[in-house]
């Protein structure tokens, strides 16, 4: 599973792309949980958009190893 990271998510992981073959998440909610387990700082992000194959995805959207995921926290700078 390829996960693209933006904003503060990229800062937390320290990389723009996360390749995580060990992740077993079947949907977006489970993926968020796995991210928190691996990187506890994700727990404090209450507001986070997730895209699956370049489309905005709700928590119940199912995912598999073939999908490209993007983790998009809000950013405020101007």
């Amino acid at each position, binding site marked *: 599973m390829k996960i693209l990271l933006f904003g503060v998510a990229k800062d937390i992981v320290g990389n723009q792309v996360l390749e995580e073959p060990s992740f077993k998440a079947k949907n977006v909610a489970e993926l968020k949980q796995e991210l928190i387990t691996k990187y506890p700082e994700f727990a404090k*992000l209450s*507001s986070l958009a997730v895209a699956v194959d370049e489309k905005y995805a709700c928590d119940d959207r199912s995912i598999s190893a073939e999908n490209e995921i993007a983790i998009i926290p809000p*950013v405020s700078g*101007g």
Partner: protein
Amino acid sequence: MNPERYTRQTRLQGFGEAGQQKLADAKVLVIGAGGLGVPVLQYLSGMGVGTIGIVDNDVVDISNLQRQILYSENDLGQSKVEIAKQKLTELNSEIEIITFPTFISTENALEIIANFDVIVDASDNFPTRYLVNDTCVILKKPLIYGALHAFEGQVSVFNFKGGPTYRCLFPEMPNPEEIPDCNENGVLGIIPGIIGSLQALEAIKVITGIGETLSGKLLLLDGLNQSQQKIKFGLNPKNLEIKELQKSYEFSCATEVKSIEAEAFLKKWNSENIQLVDVRNPEEVERQNLPEIQRKDWKNIPLSELQEKSSKIDLQKPTYFLCQSGMRSLKAINLLEGLKIYGDFVDVKGGMNAISELTATTKHS
């Protein structure tokens, strides 16, 4: 009007004289005359948008000049909207520039935004972004969105022809401790130049109807590797049901933090022996500070150093926390309480921005 002025764009197929006339008839409001607002203002003025409103209450600071390249060293300390108006009028004297030397707030948002057709969010904080989104939903105005984080940017068009809104992407405002702001986090000078230019392009498309806007799409740019992603997102109809603004768009906190309005704080500051902890960076303090600081119990401890320097705070005294916009002062109190350091802590709402609004008003009256 000099017919030569716009020939490079009026000769474009699909734009033409008709497109130019639409620009001339348009009224665009730009909220924020900083990193994003400057390129938006420059291009919209140059291209001939007939009426441009600018909302900002800041003055030009030396630390602005690496990215806000409409301003120059001679303008330091002067009102951004005034300098912007002067320079944009030099660029194009055939357009009208209307200045609003204030920060947008729940008191003025509906009134100001109502007079414009297209709104550009070039602000730099979440409370403003949510306030502007909700106002645009209520007044049915298209909103051109741009925002930055370090080397990255986001661009989209909200609330356009029944399309999705900011809240369809990020339904609720994040907590203050989640996302760092620009003052803390830094921004590479060119990034707002790029993102602001893209916002200007989207505004032109919304006004003239050329091309395809970013409505329903979030453009993500990473300046470090020049990668772009476009994320499709849809409307959640309940986000169009906003009928009135929230009472407040200030950050709400998990733990209850005591706070004080800027006006009440100034009274205390002038009459009582209170302790003030300013958690801004030294450069920000240098630029703008309270009167009579020397004779008071005042400490400058930047938020990033608060943990190691927390022993400097006299916990026996009532302690007021101040920053630029009221965001970091909240974080500071949360941080101390997280470290199990408790005292009579009070947050000064709206920070130096709110205080300077007050002192400016007093001066005028």
